[in-house]
């Protein structure tokens, strides 16, 4: 066999194994094209169109940035909702992360019955159906009972400006339901603690470090990548949080004759851009913590 035939055979073999790879990827590739890439492209196209319903079907006419301009400067509902949502996120994400970090620290200790507690803290993931949460919230079951008891709500309204007090009270009112969305995050943290080797703790203990210092010097830097991971997960989870107002905005604008699909798409894209900025910030944090870890 000459060298050329050998090369050809090698190439054929290589492509056969490549073929297996592509074949395994095929369902996902089709799905990505049909249910992800194409809708994204179309939605971007729609965002620059005025879509109106005529007798024969949809009529598209290009109107440039008009939809975005309307959403940002004319629509006083969307901008307010986006701001409210932003305020909520700013309060909720740290609450969820800190809460899950504290609980996972407690659950990470060795004590009998810890599996029971782990089961309890994961339980809300099981029944976080949107309508059930909304109903619980409406019946006032989502707040912390001692808030009204100790007059924390009046303290908040008296000491903060109204623009700050309102979202704060709103958050307090559904505190438990917010904490309910930290089930997966707790598990991620617990798994994260396992990646820190026990011998490091022994070493600092021999050097005379208290558990307090070893938490700040060893545990916290060690779980920094998991904090970033949890930030990312929480963000993604909040897309479909039942109290996320953007979903309703898009839906109501979609079926509204005066605004239609085009305007609703523009709203979705503004929301997307806003989310992407936040995610980019988190990724930056993740990257820097990875670099610090390697160094």
């Amino acid at each position, binding site marked *: 066999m000459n060298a050329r035939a050998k090369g050809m055979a090698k190439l054929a073999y290589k492509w056969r*194994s490549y073929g297996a*790879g*592509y074949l*395994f*990827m095929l*369902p*996902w590739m*089709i*799905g*990505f094209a049909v*249910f*992800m890439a194409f*809708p*994204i492209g179309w*939605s971007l196209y*729609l965002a620059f169109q005025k879509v109106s319903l005529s007798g024969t079907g949809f009529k598209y006419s290009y109107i440039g940035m008009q939809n975005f301009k309307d959403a940002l400067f004319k629509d006083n509902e969307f901008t307010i909702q986006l701001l409210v949502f932003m305020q909520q996120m700013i309060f909720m994400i740290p609450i969820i992360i800190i809460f899950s970090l504290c*609980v996972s620290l*407690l659950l990470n*200790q060795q004590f009998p*019955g810890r599996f029971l507690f782990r*089961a*309890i*803290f*994961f*339980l*809300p993931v*099981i*029944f976080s*159906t*949107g*309508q*059930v949460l*909304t*109903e*619980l919230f409406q*019946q006032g*079951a*989502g707040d*912390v009972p001692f808030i009204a008891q100790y007059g924390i709500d009046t303290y908040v309204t008296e000491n903060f400006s109204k623009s700050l007090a309102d979202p704060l009270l709103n958050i307090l009112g559904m505190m*438990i*339901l917010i*904490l*309910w969305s930290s089930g997966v995050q707790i*598990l*991620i943290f617990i*798994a994260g603690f396992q*990646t820190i080797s026990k011998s490091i703790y022994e070493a600092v*203990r021999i050097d005379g470090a*208290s*558990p307090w210092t070893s938490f700040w010097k060893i545990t916290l830097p060690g779980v920094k990548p*998991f904090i970033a991971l949890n930030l990312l997960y929480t963000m993604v989870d909040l897309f*479909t949080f039942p109290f996320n107002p953007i979903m309703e905005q*898009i839906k109501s604008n979609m079926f509204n004759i005066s605004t239609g699909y085009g305007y609703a798409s523009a709203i*979705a*894209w503004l*929301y*997307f851009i806003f*989310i*992407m900025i936040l*995610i980019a910030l988190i990724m930056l944090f993740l990257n820097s913590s990875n670099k610090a870890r390697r160094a």
Partner: protein
Amino acid sequence: MKTEAVVRRYTRQVRSYVNSRKAQRIKLAVLGQHMNDGLLAKLFIYFMLSIIAYLYLQPFFYMISTMLKGLSDLLDPTVKWIPRTIDWDNLSRAFKGLSYPRAFMNSMLLAAGGSLLQVFVCAITGYALARLQFPGKKLFFALVFLTFLIPPQVIMIPLYVTFSKLGWLGTPFVFLIPALLGQGIKSALFIIIFRQFFLSLPKALEEAAMIDGASMFRLFLRIIMPLASSACLVVFLFSFIWYWNEGYLTSMFLSGDFIPLSNKLSGLEAAIFGDNPSMATMTQNPVTEGTKMAGAFLIVFPPLVLYMIAQRWFVEGIERTGLVD
């Protein structure tokens, strides 16, 4: 002088007792070697966890308690947690109002069907991304990750139009077909889980099978999938729960005959008091609070049972599949 001697003797006794082995052992047991492994620390942990767990589960207790209250107990503010008489009417009314058997089957079809398809497709995609060699693998993995970050809001409108053109709106296809093609609910996350899992398997297994002449597909079905059964189970369970609880996309795409349980609760009042519009339009009606909570309970009950059976897999799943490494 005499008292001084007594005090001194006494102190010596106390000191010798404190230094005795028994006392040291008690001290070790209470305070522990490093403050965080003694009895005191354990009590503190139990105390904290119990309080947090109580607060955490309070809405759930509220659901159960309200569900069992009759009208007189609901209106009586002195009855807080335990109803005076247990009233099962709420449950039966909610059962009828939700048209439970039918809605249950709808939810079951979506959740079980979607999850099974998703397990299979995410497994093969994850395997390809972990073990098979082909050009553009890195790009595909980046795209998978990207799909995780895309809010459903962005693609909802085109999907709605597409589905309505295909005539799929109101049928289970709107969820089953994307699941079959790896674009179901949180598919990207499951693909990443499978990829991490397959990366952790030893390569020698596949090499041995290849030398024995197994084809790629036999290798995957006979050797890899049985090894991945634990990962499959974890993905199935999570996927089932997320499909069951999905309320937004279902409210968008499903209507008419095919409504899953997760979208039934808001229409419960209208379904019960359909003939009495004045009752149905009243929001925050204490009369229906119990019934609505019963409805909520009926909705979360099936996943709750699943969780009781498979609790271990849920809680340890994330560690087991090595998602975080």
